[in-house]
């Protein structure tokens, strides 16, 4: 490579890097700085004093924040594992060769393409306490039995989990499918010749070979599940009794509804740190070589 060419290529890279710097790298740095200040949006006369780690101390003693953390953990754990499990089943299904396979793939992609806000409204409608179809399917015409799903803490969280699983299972399935498709057919044929049944073929061929892509799907889904906002905002507004008050929603409320920019920034730094730790684990587990091989 000639030197002038390298300059030219770096010049091509520059605009994209600039956009990422201004709208992602700088804001994250600034979020960290803001979290050490007291900033209240409606009260500029306070002049945003530096208060050290006070926001973080408050965060540790904030029972709503602690509750919100656990709600998010429950949400992330259950959704990720359900999505991977159903995603695996779906991927195994799509991996079969049969007529109409393309159409099936398109059908399962539809929930993924639907805006989250639309699917949130959809589930809110289906879970409605007086004319929702889920109540009708369970209790028929016995209206007195109908459950107010979104008004009870346990069932409201369940509803949001179901909505998320419905929407993103197909994404997990696609990632797993990519791993399935690189398994050579000969392996299965050889195992069949040796008399291995369906389960043993899965256990000894499929499972070890798709583990890397399962891992990728696991961490992609985990990181993404931490960002849950739209579903909770539309379906329950974080209620009832903060049962669905996930971290990103709580941070949003503090920053943009109550105007506590500094405190909200401390929350967002907290979320950021959790996701960062996960991302580091992700790169460790997947391995540098796999990332390098992909370019």
């Amino acid at each position: 490579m000639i030197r002038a060419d390298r300059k030219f290529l770096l010049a091509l890279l520059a605009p994209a890097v600039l956009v990422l710097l201004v709208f992602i790298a700088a804001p994250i740095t600034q979020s960290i700085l803001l979290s050490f200040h007291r900033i209240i949006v409606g009260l500029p006369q306070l002049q945003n004093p530096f208060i050290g780690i006070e926001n973080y101390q408050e965060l540790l003693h904030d029972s709503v924040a602690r509750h919100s953390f656990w709600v998010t953990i429950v949400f992330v754990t259950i959704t990720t594992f359900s999505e991977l499990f159903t995603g695996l089943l779906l991927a195994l299904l799509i991996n079969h060769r049969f007529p109409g396979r393309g159409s099936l793939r398109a059908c399962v992609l539809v929930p993924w393409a639907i805006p989250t806000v639309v699917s949130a409204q959809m589930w809110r409608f289906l879970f409605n306490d007086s004319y929702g179809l889920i109540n009708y399917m369970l209790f028929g015409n016995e209206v007195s039995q109908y459950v107010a799903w979104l008004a009870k803490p346990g069932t409201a969280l369940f509803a949001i989990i179901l909505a998320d699983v419905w929407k993103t299972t197909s994404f997990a399935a696609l990632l797993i499918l990519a791993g399935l498709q690189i398994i050579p057919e000969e392996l299965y044929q050889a195992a069949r010749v040796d008399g291995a049944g369906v389960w043993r073929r899965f256990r000894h061929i499929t499972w070890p070979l798709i583990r890397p892509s399962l891992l990728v799907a696991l961490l992609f889904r985990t990181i993404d599940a931490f960002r849950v906002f739209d579903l909770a905002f539309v379906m329950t507004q974080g209620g009832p009794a903060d049962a669905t008050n996930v971290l990103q929603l709580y941070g949003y409320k503090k920053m943009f509804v109550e105007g506590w920019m500094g405190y909200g920034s401390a929350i967002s730094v907290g979320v950021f740190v959790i996701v960062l730790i996960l991302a580091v684990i992700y790169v460790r587990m997947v391995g540098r070589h796999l990332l390098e091989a992909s370019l």
Partner: protein
Amino acid sequence: MTRGWLKKTGLVLGVTIAVAFSLVPFLLFVSSAFKTQTQVTAIPPTLWPSFSIDFFRSAVVRYGILGYLLNSVIVAGSTTLATIFLATLAGYALARLPRSWAYFSLLVILACAMFPQIAIVGPVWRFLRLMGWLNSYQGLVLPYVALTLPLAVWILALFFREMPAELEAAALVDGCSRIGALVRVIVPLSAPGLFTAAILTFIYAWNEFFLALLIVTDPVRQTMPVGIALFQGEHTVPWGEIAAASFITTAPLVVMVLLFQRRIVTGLSAGAIKG
């Protein structure tokens, strides 16, 4: 013989469940858009709508849905154009730079894709307020470009890697400039990759809600997802109008998925494993 039959039945059953799980909830919901007011909340539910278009009329006339739709088209369209332009340049650079450089840039770019939006949203909001860009199209498009760039750059870098460098060399010999070789030779050959990246970018920008909610508070500039989320009736939830708006928002995406599912799948898996 029986084994084959068993397998076939299992397959049919699996496919039926997968399709029903994916499509039935959504069909039940959007069918409300074609019902009458009493049909929407009827128990037992009316499964077959009467294909009334009253809710669409009301969504347009009373709720001004077309304004939201226009904003969505402008925002998602501009985001796609800008992202693809920047990602073409950056992706090409990554594909041709020495491996170690490319690897480092890729890692940085990927790291950008993993951050939770909440970690950037406060400062971005303050920056946009400072520039006077809250409630403007560019106020939404610029952050969207930043958020969609990583995946687009990655997809395109993988794609350009497959193009032999001799192609450009030949174009240079023929008297093309360096940029000319990229624009006239590489870009046309990369149409499928560009298309994949464009679809994914468009879907992201079309569906995004969190930033749109914060940055644009003036209904005149709000996009469809915000409109759908904040729909308010006078006394009751206007389910028919919400379903109508949802139908309008989702229809283009469903058409895209049905037509281009192969491209979308390739693009998405490129985001995780080599495509």
